[in-house]
């Protein structure tokens, strides 16, 4: 078999989380009673007219900035004409030749070592969503739920820059993280707020030209996207290996069966008869607004990830956990600002014990009493040898529930680390005396009991024993036996 390379381009449709729909004042919300968020306008009743929700333009421009696009301050909307029962006007208002944003890119991280790849973003345009066909056992035909009609969408079209399903997944994850970070889409996959169409072609490795591409529709999850790309790649290679050629066509992905099937060939491609939407004015966004929206962007997740990895030397795993939780990230940055400890020590606590306790209590960070100052002071106590790491685990529990200085807690509870050899020697002797069989086992080669013996010593010291010293004394004592 020849060596093949796959070429993937993605069209991501994201529903925007504006309060109201794109062309009328109906509520934009998922899960309402069937046909309850509708009015004559989004139902396309005769004589009704659309008026543009300007928030949609703002949201799309924000996304455009985040993806380094040129913003077309002057652009238009067009009608895409086709018949389907979920499309009440029989045309979708979209943008054809002049999208709101174009010529952008997204840098995605391909692995944990931080290998980067730039994926081109061809364009971002605004459009309206269609309704949904509903099938009900009590009714032989199809029913239509128009609630989703007029829900604002942006379509983000990538360049054919991805060369594997993993790259596609990294791109999709990146897009999703940005949409969430900008708070322009809630990105709930199960509610269909992000969907994608995937273009796949396969060529011999080293080839500079693109082969015919196949467009796959109906991909509703990112994991489905990976499966769909892998399936289609395999299918195309099989066709080519058998001496066949791939024709440009549209296929429908069936995620349950894990296969795709022909939807329409190029010859039967729909002619959407795009033309400028005469009911709406040219969109003109003032320069100042474009700039203000740019200034309003928060730090983007992929930038933050890189910063954490580069500036704080955090491993990808820690950095990524922080990026995924803005509250913890902010807490982390506050700790860094206080300074005095290694960033990794901070994430060890924040993503370790603190996160575990939050999970147990089903809290978010702000529901606890923990402050960056207290965490940093506690870490300082450990690093200076004042308390042991084990004691820290006790202190952190208190800090989560009470805003009290760690030094005060240590004082009150008598948790100061014991580094007095004579005190610790007595403890070691007692533990060994009570565990003679284990000591014999240890000496006989069962080294795995070591941890248990150390634990017993720590316990006997009520967690206050200096662990390094305890280990040293324990080792010596066993050697003497």
């Amino acid at each position: 078999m020849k060596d093949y390379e796959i070429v993937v381009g993605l069209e991501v449709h994201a529903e925007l989380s504006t309060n109201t729909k794109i062309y009328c004042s109906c509520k934009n919300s998922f899960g309402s009673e069937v046909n309850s968020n509708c009015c004559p306008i989004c139902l396309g009743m005769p004589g009704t007219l659309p008026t543009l929700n300007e928030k949609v333009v703002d949201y799309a421009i924000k996304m455009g900035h985040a993806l380094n696009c040129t913003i077309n301050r002057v652009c238009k909307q067009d009608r895409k004409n086709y018949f389907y029962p979920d499309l009440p006007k029989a045309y979708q208002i979209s943008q054809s030749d002049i999208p709101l944003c174009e010529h952008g890119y997204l840098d995605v991280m391909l692995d944990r070592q931080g290998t980067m790849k730039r994926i081109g973003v061809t364009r971002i345009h605004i459009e309206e969503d269609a309704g949904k066909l509903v099938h009900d056992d009590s009714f032989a035909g199809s029913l239509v739920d128009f609630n989703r009609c007029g829900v604002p969408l942006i379509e983000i079209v990538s360049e054919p820059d991805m060369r594997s399903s993993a790259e596609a997944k990294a791109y999709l994850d990146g897009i999703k993280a940005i949409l969430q970070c900008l708070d322009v889409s809630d990105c709930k996959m199960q509610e269909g707020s992000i969907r994608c169409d995937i273009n796949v072609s396969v060529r011999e490795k080293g080839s500079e030209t693109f082969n015919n591409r196949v467009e796959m529709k109906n991909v509703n999850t990112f994991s489905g996207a990976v499966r769909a790309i892998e399936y289609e790649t395999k299918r195309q290679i099989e066709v080519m290996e058998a001496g066949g050629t791939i024709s440009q066509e549209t296929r429908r992905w069936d995620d349950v069966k894990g296969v795709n099937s022909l939807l329409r060939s190029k010859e039967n491609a729909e002619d959407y008869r795009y033309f400028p939407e005469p009911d709406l004015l040219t969109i003109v966004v003032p320069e100042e607004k474009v700039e203000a929206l740019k200034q309003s962007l928060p730090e983007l997740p992929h930038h933050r990830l890189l910063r954490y990895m580069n500036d704080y030397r955090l491993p990808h795993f820690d950095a990524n956990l922080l990026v995924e939780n803005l509250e913890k990230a902010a807490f982390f940055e506050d700790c860094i600002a206080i300074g005095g400890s290694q960033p990794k020590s901070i994430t060890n606590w924040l993503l370790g014990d603190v996160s575990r306790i939050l999970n147990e209590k089903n809290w978010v960070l702000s529901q606890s009493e923990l402050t960056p100052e207290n965490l940093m002071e506690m870490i300082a106590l450990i690093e200076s040898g004042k308390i042991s790491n084990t004691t820290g685990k006790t202190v952190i529990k208190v800090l989560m529930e009470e805003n009290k200085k760690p030094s005060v807690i240590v004082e009150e509870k008598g948790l100061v680390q014991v580094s007095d050899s004579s005190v610790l020697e007595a403890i070691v002797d007692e533990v060994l005396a009570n565990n003679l069989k284990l000591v014999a086992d240890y000496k006989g080669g069962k080294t795995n009991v070591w941890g248990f013996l150390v634990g017993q010593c720590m316990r006997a010291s009520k967690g206050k024993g200096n662990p390094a010293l305890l280990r040293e004394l324990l080792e010596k004592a066993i050697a003497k036996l």
Partner: protein
Amino acid sequence: MELYTKSATELGRMLRNRECSAVEITKASFSRIAGVDGKVQAFLTLNEQAALEKAAEVDQKLAAGEILSPLAGIPVGIKDNICTKGVKTTCASKMLHNFVPPYSATVIQKLENLDYTLVGKLNMDEFAMGSSTETSYFQKTANPHDLTRVPGGSSGGSAAAVAAGEVPLALGSDTGGSVRQPASHCGIVGLKPTYGSVSRYGLVAFASSLDQIGPMARTVEDVALLYGAICGQDVMDATSASREYPDFTKSLDGGVKGLRIGLPKEYYGEGVNSDVRDAVLQAVKALEAQGAQVVDVSLPSTPYALSAYYIISSAEASSNLARFDGVKYGYRTPEYKNLEELYERTRSEGFGDEVKRRIMLGTFVLSSGYYNAYYKRGKLLQQKTAEEFAASFNDCDLLVTPVTPTTAFKIGENISDPLKMYASDILSVTVNIAGLPGLSVPCGKDQGGLPIGMQLIGPKFSEETLLRTAYTYEKLIGGFDPIPTL
């Protein structure tokens, strides 16, 4: 004189002076309809009971000393493509034969706020496509001046109802001449306002970039009154213009001294009937005698504008009318095996020939491979036409032309020859193409006694000038001809 012969302005005055009641006015309108609509066939739906209730309400308000608008209690007929909440709105099509809108057009809401009386809904060419009202699915409307002739179209029902004295006021819609041409054929006054001055919300769209709702009446003053009531920016219509409008009835008296009237030579050429040409030029002379100046101008793209018009309007119509698919409202074919068949049969059976012709034409000019050759060129020609008009207004304040090349033709005369029918729009479509206001004003009759109309065309938002000029003319000739005997 009977109440039905009076103008809306006069009826309003009488009402305020308690010379008659709103109920009497409404009853006069319905009794006239009962008397003559069997011959004229202007109305598709009558709203008699609700109208009488509304009139009684107006009388009560007046009795209680409320100050009401000049349109309070005035009977108005509405073209059947303007949505009226709870009252059938069919567009004279089988497709919408049973459609009752759950909302009212903005213009209807405005008139309701002024306590007008909705008399009923008026016949038209199906979906406003036609120039004779013969493409209506329901009935053929006759010209009150000669019942064997068409009233013009597409607002033929509106024009005929006003001309026959059934209502003093009506609303029509004008995409390529559909207010002005029937007004001309029926000897009444009709205004196609500047694009963007009247909200299109609730007007069932034919060609969105050209459609405007317009007032029709037997006097200029009434047209000014109704226009003032319906114009204005509407947040529901993104294409409606943001500006303040004056009270158009207040500035009618200004005369025409110093007014520069342009005569575009392309509008007086071959194909324009000599009776029509002579009548219009004579009216211009009369205005000249009042102090207006006449200048010759040229609008060289005029011969091409008709093609541009049919390309653009059909393209938009093919998209606007796609929603009539049998899924949600209106007609649905009784038998179908699948979705494709539901669409095909519903649309084949629900639309008439003229509508289907335009949908096919529009679909063709927008289809890939033909878009640049047709639609795009049509839009370029539109721009050129608008530029020529704008340039001509450097030399004059308004243009005067005939509204149509001929007077009303016989029912059935042109219906089987679409091209001939389309050609009759040549003098009116340019105004829509350029988004300008156009006013159709009666200016005499041809040898057969049929009304002739002159068209006043001005720059955008020059309605005040057009109305003042027309009013001057109306006064000069001692008023327009009375309602014909039926």
